[in-house]
């Protein structure tokens, strides 16, 4: 589903963020990206949905070389990749339901689809009774659920999560991981960058470890270190 071939990314004026990285992630896999701060985890994720372009190497998503993608097709790529972040990126002036429907509205999905999908997905993430609340009326864990609902409402092939539990207490984090696990079980490939040792060690999924932009470990059913 995701394949990196010899990928190098250098930010101008900074050291190399990702060096000659090779990785092959199959459909339906759940992968943890671990490594110290600044090791290139976020860069790895941003390359997959073309928020950044590599300086060298090739990246394939669903068999397509995304380096060859013309700029007007990038939105189509992103419709197949959901993104979740540490800071949720919710729109404060929209309710839960509006935040989720926004993702469908702006890609031109018909109204009747939105009407049925949004309540269903809010139910799935456990926020069926909070559809009309605003983000500031929710706990951190609930806000992250909203952002996961928004990322997943278009049923993407891939879900990228950049430290989704970074701002949450351990108990809440476990709830979020259960949710991501459930989403993974529907066949969605999940790639998650994290510093959370406990989660990685409990879930025992594939672990890719980065250090200074180099992939130093790629282990099935791995642990944090």
């Amino acid at each position, binding site marked *: 589903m995701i394949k990196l071939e010899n990928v190098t990314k250098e930010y101008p004026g900074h050291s190399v963020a990702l060096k000659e990285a090779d990785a092959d992630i199959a459909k339906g896999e759940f992968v943890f990206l671990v490594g110290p701060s600044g090791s290139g985890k976020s860069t790895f994720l941003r390359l997959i949905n073309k928020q950044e372009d590599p300086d060298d190497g090739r990246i394939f998503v669903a068999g397509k070389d995304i380096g060859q993608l013309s700029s*007007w097709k990038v939105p189509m790529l*992103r*419709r197949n990749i*959901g993104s979740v972040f540490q800071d949720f990126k919710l*729109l404060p002036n929209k309710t839960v339901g509006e935040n989720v429907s*926004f993702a469908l*509205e*702006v890609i031109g999905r018909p109204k009747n689809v939105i009407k049925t999908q949004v309540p269903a997905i809010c139910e799935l993430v456990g926020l069926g009774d909070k559809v009309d609340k605003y983000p500031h009326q929710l706990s951190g864990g609930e806000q992250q659920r909203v952002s996961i609902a928004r990322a997943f409402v*278009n049923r993407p092939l891939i879900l990228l999560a950049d430290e989704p539990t970074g701002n949450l207490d351990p108990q809440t984090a476990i709830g979020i991981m259960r949710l991501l696990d459930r989403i993974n079980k529907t066949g969605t490939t999940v790639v998650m960058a994290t510093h959370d040792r406990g989660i990685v060690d409990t879930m025992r999924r594939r672990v890719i470890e980065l250090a200074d932009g180099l992939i130093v470990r790629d282990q099935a059913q791995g642990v944090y270190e």
Partner: protein
Amino acid sequence: MALRVDYIAKETGNNLIRNPSLTIATVLTVALSLSLLGAALLLQRGVDGLNTRFKDDIEFIVWVQPDAAQEQIDLVQRSLDESSSVSDYRFVNREETFTEFREFWADSPEVIDAVGPDELPTSFRVVPVVPDLALVQALGSEFEDLPGVLKVDFASEYIKQLNDFTNVASRVMIGAAIASALASSMLMYNTIRTALFARRREVEVMRLVGASNTFIRIPFMLEGLMQGLFGAAFSVLSVFALNRALRGLIEKTDFQLLDSFALPSGDLWQISIWLLVAGTLIGFIGSGIAVSRYLDA
């Protein structure tokens, strides 16, 4: 992709009212610059009208001294008859001149009372063959030196002066219009940039979930377009108002020459269309630059 008209209308509307003072400032600068442009076009049309109207009208007047002898008048007349450059002329006698004089000074009876018909000069209204200003002036001065001739007036000279004045005026106005159009484009650019900044979170989310570039841009482009159009609409109003004021002024002065500066409404509508096009362009250019600068990353 289905174009969601309701969504776009809502977003454009929200953008327009999010920052009312900036929106108003932008609309007003567009209105100001286009009003200047409109006034310049109005003047230009007036001059064009003036020129066509007076093209084959009286070109100069030979005034004869009130106390000129009949032989002197006959001499002038003979010279006119003989001149191959004169296509036509008409003698205006004392009574006719006095009637004109009375009409002209109708508001001031004391002037009329003070002047008797005998004190007024008679005149020849001469139409030259070639209505070229230089030729007409040369021709006119030939008659200036004839005995009994008071002076030669060139109608075309007044027209030329008026022409020169309005040309300069309309050039100045067009210059000012261009300068303020540039200013309003820049203001537009800043307004749209501000709107983009205010909506950076939405834009970020839209990009992440795969909204098309067109979809993200349309509300911002439309915002600029609407502001340009609103400004243009104001300038259309001011052009109509200006024309109306001019008409009132001209009617009051009773100065025939200026008639062509009060334009028929057909001309006004034509100018209005130009102003609306210009407003649309200002909006399009200003917002287009802002959107491509800040969304093509």
